[in-house]
């Protein structure tokens, strides 16, 4: 038996012994909640075991997570979108197909209904067209839906992006450098950062002389930005570790952790 297999068996055995002790001592309730905590603790430890080495328990937990999330999302979409929003409209479409003349007369009697029903029914039809990707012959219908998605996406995104990322950012980027209080350092720093980074990413001319000097300042701004992002990333990853360890210590091992 090699060392890794021995470590694997020892850890699994230790986990089983700890859980047995927790259940026998009554610290973990012998009900659905207790089993849920045990499962969550087991999956957490299985995922962290990757830090030592890739192993079957990690693979199991990884695939379990993907499966559970997929099923949970499907359930949420079914109960909160398909059932209340899509299926009643699908039933209306089915009714219209079965009795086109009756429905047509009813709509002619109240033309406003055409717009209302159109708003409700057209998205469902476009959604059904997307499903034709799964078929062979009528796959061309899905292109109508994709054309709608691309057109809508471009129409929504382009003006909003320009507004939020360019126009609204211009004002705070170009602030007065001299105010009544004197020289404003922060606006100068922002202006210098924006200009130098823009020059660094201008590849149409050679980065020598004054242009090279300014682009080197741009590199420094980028380095500071990467450093800040890395610092925040470390903070985020540690926070996740803290949260999961807190769960393991408080909920699984039922320890009382100090607040201060």
């Amino acid at each position, binding site marked *: 038996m090699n060392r890794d297999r021995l470590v694997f068996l020892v850890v699994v055995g230790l986990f089983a012994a700890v859980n047995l002790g927790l259940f026998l001592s009554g610290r973990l309730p012998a009900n659905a909640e207790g089993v849920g905590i045990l499962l969550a603790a087991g999956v957490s430890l299985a995922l962290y075991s990757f830090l030592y080495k890739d192993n079957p328990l990690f693979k199991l937990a990884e695939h379990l997570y993907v499966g559970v999330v997929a099923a949970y999302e499907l359930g949420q979409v079914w109960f909160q979108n398909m059932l209340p929003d899509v299926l009643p409209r699908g039933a209306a479409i089915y009714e219209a197909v079965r009795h086109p003349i009756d429905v047509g007369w009813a709509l002619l009697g109240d033309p406003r209904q055409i717009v209302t029903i159109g708003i409700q029914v057209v998205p469902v039809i476009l959604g059904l067209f997307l499903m034709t990707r799964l078929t062979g012959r009528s796959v061309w219908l899905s292109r109508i839906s994709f054309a709608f998605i691309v057109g809508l996406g471009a129409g929504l995104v382009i003006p909003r992006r320009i507004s939020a990322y360019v126009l609204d*950012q211009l004002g705070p980027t170009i602030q007065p450098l001299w105010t009544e209080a004197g020289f404003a350092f922060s606006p100068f720093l922002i202006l210098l950062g924006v200009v130098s980074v823009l020059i660094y990413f201008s590849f149409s001319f050679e980065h020598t002389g004054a242009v090279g000097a300014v682009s080197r300042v741009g590199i420094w701004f980028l380095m500071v930005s990467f450093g800040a992002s890395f610092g925040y990333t470390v*903070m985020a990853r*540690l926070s996740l570790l803290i949260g999961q360890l807190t769960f393991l210590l408080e909920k699984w091992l039922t320890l009382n952790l100090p607040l201060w």
Partner: protein
Amino acid sequence: MANLTNIDRRWIFLAVFISVLVPLLVGFHLPVKASPNVRAIYTSIDALDAKAGDTVLMSFDFGPSTLTELQPMAKAVLRHCFRKKLKVVGVTLLPEGVGIAETILSDVAAEFGATYGEDYIFLGYKAGNEVLILNMGEELRAAFSTDVRGTPLDDLTVTRPLRSLGDMAYVLDISAGYPGVEEWIQYGQERYRFKLGAGCTAVMAPDFFPFLQSGQLDGLLGGLAGAAEYETLIGQPDAAVSGMRPQSVGHVVIILFILFGNVAYFASRRGGGS
């Protein structure tokens, strides 16, 4: 020296693990001071008037993978809202956010004796991402005709006077990615001009600082530290403040490793290593 630069990474994992575990078990006090970005959200919510029927919309756009970072800030802001007896409307743009949002809302509501329907409601999830935000901005009932429990919005005290996002006194998006803060800025705040605050994972926080500068965001809660600052402001320290001990010690250990790595690297170069 070559041995130092080729150290097994598992020793680093072990050191970080111990640096987080020990401060969790051993209590000591570290001061937590609120930054201006966190204080801005606190001040805005504190200025709201319950008697005027001010309503706060909270969008829980995160799943279980970032729960440990974002749940404390959601709880802290909710505690502030319920303490001030403000009405709260919850919503999520992610299907996996439904269970999380429901649990957080009901747990914090129970602490303050807040009643569902009277003091807070949860709209649930609808597909559409940014389009859903636009839809809510135009007509709330077009996006959600009922709450998550199937009750029509006109039958609920909280939502009866609300017609669109413009009727919200404050909107806070707590997000872990897409759809999230950027979508709420572009399709919500930009278009309907409501006051928007954001809470996000620490990884995302640097990306949103330009929006603070431009006033598109009112304030920002960045990661567990942001949550700890908010807990301090409301005077109710909880998981986030407690997490600052291991966070601080962990940071010191990582800084020491960075310094150690650099010293080892330059020493190995001086010694003729590659």
